[in-house]
């Protein structure tokens, strides 16, 4: 079963994105990052249609180019199939083997996040539990 973006609306799965215009990260990156997360988590699956650029831009109160850029970025990464005159579609993507450099970059990011969590007083057991939950959610 795939969740399709239709005129009549078929809210089969809960998929929402949230951007913060006051954040330092550009809006198109925020859109792309969150869509990628939804795809990886399985909230959006291969075959699912994304909202038209115009529709998503309207709802987020941003320029069309912001959403178009996010879709283009995800298409280049192999997550989406985009074309003129039709909605972007989530496609099957072969998982690449991480390079040593990518692995190191992810490790560094993870360390930073963990340090931030610990610094803000989150207990180690809670962090472990949260990570476990997130990994389980992505497996399903």
């Amino acid at each position, binding site marked *: 079963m795939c969740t399709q*973006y*239709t005129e009549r*609306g078929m*809210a089969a799965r809960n998929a929402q994105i949230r951007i913060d215009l006051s954040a330092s990260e550009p809006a198109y990156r925020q859109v792309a990052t969150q869509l990628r997360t939804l795809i990886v988590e399985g909230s959006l699956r291969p075959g699912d249609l994304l909202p038209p650029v115009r529709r998503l*831009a309207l709802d987020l*109160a941003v*320029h069309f180019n912001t959403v178009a850029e996010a879709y283009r970025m995800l298409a280049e990464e192999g997550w989406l199939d985009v074309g003129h005159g039709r909605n972007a579609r989530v496609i099957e993507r072969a998982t690449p083997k991480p390079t040593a450099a990518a692995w190191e970059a992810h490790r560094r990011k993870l360390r930073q996040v963990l340090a931030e969590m610990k610094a803000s007083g989150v207990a180690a057991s809670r962090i472990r539990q949260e990570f476990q939950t997130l990994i389980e959610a992505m497996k399903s």
Partner: protein
Amino acid sequence: MRSTMFMLLAPVMLLIAVLFHFIPRMRKRNLYFAVTVSEEFRQSEEGQSIARTFRTFVWAGTILALAASWTALGRGWVVAANLAPDVQIVVILIAWVIAWRRTRSHAVPPAGVRSAEIVQASGGPTWGLLALILPPFGPVAAAVFLWLNYSELPAHWGRYTGPIRPGHVDHFIDKSPLVVFATPAIAAAVLLLCLVIGLGIRYASRRGSSGERAGWAPKFRRLNLMMLTGIMWAVSLMTSVLSLAPLLSPGTIQALLPVFVVALLATLVGFGVPLIRMSMERTGGSDATPDECWKGGAIYYNPSDSALMVEKRSGIGYTLNFGNRIAWVILAFVLLAPIFVIAVASGLK
């Protein structure tokens, strides 16, 4: 003559004054005179002082305009008397800008957070679209009917400048295409404009959330569309009947018009009251528009926002985003429509 004209002008001016008296309260608690403020600001001493000054201007302008209109009518200056509401509006606009400028010094950064459903309905029910599209066809159908029965129309017919009384007309005019088709043409133009605005709200306004209670924005949008549709239907039926006046008896018109007026008022009250309530409720968020894009606190110009219609920051309803090129086309239409009406009206004389 003086008192009759004054009795027509005074209620309009008083209604405008009452509307603007309450307008500072008719919006989310963190929007005050179109500026993003803290929820508590409205009740603060400075917040109340701004509202007091604004209301003093509103009522002073109204009294000034009423006095000017009464004096002008006494001297037989009807045109000057008709300009009195414009004086009132100018005073209110000045008061608004003063209040807006004062409030700006207490502005807080608006919430930059916006969220959107990835899987959702893009429009609304099809019957809603149909209900929105059909009203302009009312006067068009009336015009076609008049055209098909043009030879059957009387050579002269009565016009009413006051209340309609069966068996009595104020004056007679000769039949001509301009006279026959003026009412449906003007009505169709106005309803077409309403249709464009309705389609703008339906397809080119925000439905995502900007931090307010979930579902607030779609409900506000839906209610606005329903009110607009109701008004369009009432206006369409009323103007269609008026267009067919030469073929109908005055008694029929007299019987039908109050029905349409009641329907129009029922629509305004039925949807207007819930909309005002929604506008005033504590929603927990702001709108998705930056303060600096609200010129004078009333005109929205944001080329980075793809929306054509955005929620007003004062009062209820939607306004145009002049950062969108289509808004300028609509503005041109709005400016050209009165010229069209004046041209048609002058042709009627």
